[in-house]
C-alpha cells in the first residue's frame, strides 16, 4: 500500500511538472505578446506627446504673431468701418427715415428746378414697409412734371443711388407711368413729361 502511494506521488509530481511547464510557456507567450503590443502603443503615444508639445510651443508664438497682426490691421479696419457706417447711415440706414428721404428728394428737385428746364414734384405718398429676408423696403409714389432732360436726370439719380461713398439713399424704380408728346429723351423737343413713379427705398433690418 505504501509502495503504491509513493508511486502515485512520483507520478503526480511528474504531471505537475509538465503542467507547470506548459502554463509557464503559455503565460510567457501571453504576457510577452500583450506587453509588446501595449508597449508599442505606449511608445507611440509618448512620441505623440513629445511632438504635440513641440507643436504647441510653435503655436504659442504663432498666436502672438496672429494677434499682433490682427491688432495692427484692426486700426485700419476700424477706420474703414466707421466710414462705411457713416455712409451707410445715409445710403442704407437702419430705419425707414422717410423724413430724411423727403429732404433728399426736395433737395434734388431744387437743384434741377434752378435751371431752365422744369422739374416739379407735385406729390409724394409713402406706403407700408415691406419686410424682406435681410432688408426692408419703404415703397412710395411720386407724381412729377418735368422736362425730358430732367426726367433723364431723375432716372439717373435713382439708378445710381446707393453707392457707399455717395450721399443718395438706395432706391430703385419699380414702375413708371409717363405721358408726353414726342420723346421722353433729353434733347428732344418734347413738351413737359408727366409721370408717376413707384419707387422703393431700402433700409437695414
Amino acid at each position, binding site marked *: 500500500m*505504501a*509502495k503504491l502511494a*509513493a508511486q502515485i*506521488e*512520483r507520478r503526480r*509530481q511528474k504531471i505537475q*511538472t509538465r503542467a*507547470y511547464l506548459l*502554463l*509557464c510557456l503559455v*503565460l*510567457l507567450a501571453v*504576457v510577452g505578446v*500583450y*506587453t509588446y503590443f501595449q*508597449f508599442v*502603443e*505606449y511608445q*507611440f*503615444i509618448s512620441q*505623440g*506627446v513629445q*511632438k*504635440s508639445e513641440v*507643436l*504647441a510651443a510653435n*503655436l504659442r508664438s504663432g*498666436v502672438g504673431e*496672429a494677434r499682433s497682426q*490682427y491688432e495692427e*490691421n484692426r486700426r485700419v*479696419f476700424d477706420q*474703414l*468701418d466707421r466710414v*462705411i*457706417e457713416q455712409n451707410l447711415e445715409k445710403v*442704407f440706414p437702419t430705419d425707414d427715415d422717410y423724413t430724411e428721404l423727403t429732404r433728399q428728394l426736395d433737395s434734388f428737385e431744387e437743384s434741377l428746378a434752378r435751371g431752365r428746364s422744369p422739374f416739379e414734384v407735385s406729390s409724394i405718398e409713402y406706403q407700408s414697409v415691406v419686410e424682406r429676408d*435681410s432688408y426692408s423696403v419703404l415703397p412710395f409714389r411720386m407724381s412729377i412734371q418735368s422736362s425730358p432732360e430732367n426726367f433723364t436726370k431723375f*432716372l*439717373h439719380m435713382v*439708378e445710381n443711388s*446707393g*453707392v457707399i461713398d*455717395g450721399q443718395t439713399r438706395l432706391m*430703385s*424704380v*419699380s*414702375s*413708371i*407711368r*409717363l*405721358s*408726353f408728346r*414726342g*420723346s*421722353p*429723351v433729353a434733347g*428732344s423737343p418734347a413738351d413737359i413729361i408727366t409721370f408717376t413713379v413707384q419707387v422703393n427705398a*431700402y433700409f*437695414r433690418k
Partner: protein
Amino acid sequence: MAEQENPLDSQTPPKQEKSDIVDSIVSTETAEDQKSILGEAPEIDTSLLQEVEPEKSVSLTLLKILFSILFFSGVISVLFFTSQLTPRFESLAINLGLPSVTRELSSVNSEVVRLQTDINMYRHLQVKSFLDQFSFYGDSFMHDYSIADSPTSSRTEIEAATGRLTETREHLAQSFLSARELIAHPIHVPIVDTQYPDDASLIALFQDKLRERLRKRADDLRGEDEYESRRDYRNYMDTLRIVGNTELRNLLVATDFDDLTDSQLYNLIDQVNSLIVNDMSIIHEINKQRVRWSDIINEIEMRTKAVDSYYSQDFFDAVGGIRYTSFDFDAVNRRISIIGEIKTISTTTFTMIANLVDELNASEMFKNGEVRSFSKSGSLADGYTGSLRLSLDLEEKLITTD
C-alpha cells in the same frame, strides 16, 4: 562443520521461531566449503525504501516560482498599461499624482486645438475685414463701371468714371490679395488622436471649434448698445459665414487678380459679394435686381430711329413717323407697354408698325414684343394715322459684360 552462530543472534534471546524481519534485513549465505570471519554480509531490503516519501522535485519547484513571477509580471503589466493607455483608474492615478501618457496627450491636444483655434479666429476676422474692404471698393468700381458702360452717360461722366476705375482697382487688389494670403493657410494642424485619422476629420474639427469660438464671442456681446460692441458682434456673426466656405476659398485662391480685365473684375466682385454677407453685399444684391430705365428708354429711342429716321425731330405732323404718348414700365413683371401713334403719307402704316415690332424684338434688351391689333384712318391726301399699342418684355440680363 557445525553451523556458526550469528553474532547478532547472541544478543537476542533464543528464538522459538524464525524472524522474517531479521532474516530480511540480515542474511548471510556462505558456501559450505568456505570459512569467513565476519560471516555473511547483511542484505539491504530495498522494498522498505519504497515506503519512504519521494523527495520534492527541484524542477517543479523552479517552475512554480517561475509561474508566480510570470503571473505577477502579467498583473503588473496589465495594471500599468491599463492606467497609462485607458481611462480606467484615472481618478485613482490623479489622486495619487501618477502620470499617464493618455492624459498628457489629451491635455496637450486640447492646448494645440485651442491655440490653433485662436490663430484661425484672428485670421478669419482679418479675412472678413479685407473682404469688407473689397466690397466697399467693389461697390464704387461697379458703380463707375456701369456709368462708363451706359449709353446714356455723358462724356464727362464716362471720363470721370473711367479714371476712378483705375484708382479703385489698386485698392481692390490690395484687399483681395491680403484676404487670399490669409485664407490660403490651412485651418488644421496634425494631432495624435485616433478619433481624427485623416485631414478631412481634422478640418471638420477645427472648423467646428472656430465656429464655437466665434459664436461664444458674439453671444458675449449680444444686446450691447455701444457702437463698438455692436460692430464687434456683427463682425463675429459675419465671420461665421466665412468659416468652411469652400467656394469662397477656392475663388480667392484660384483667381489671378492681375490678369483680370475690368469686365472680369466686375464679375469677380459680383461673385465675392454673393458668397459673403455684409451690408454692402446686400446693397449689391439690390443693385443687381435694379433696372436702368434710362438705358431702356434710350434703347427704345435707338430702335425707333432705325424705323423712323425723323423720330423725335418734331417732323411728325409734316412727314409722319412714330410718336409715343405714354410709356408704362413695370419692373416687377419686367413688362413695358407703349402707346403712341403712327402716321404715314402712304398706306403702309401697318408696315411701319410691323417694322417697329421686329426692330424692338431684335434688341438684346427686349423680347416678346407684339401688336395684335392694327387700325388706321385717313386718306391719301392727308395721310394715314394709326394707333399704336405695343407691349414687350425685358430680357433677364440687361447689363452685358465681356
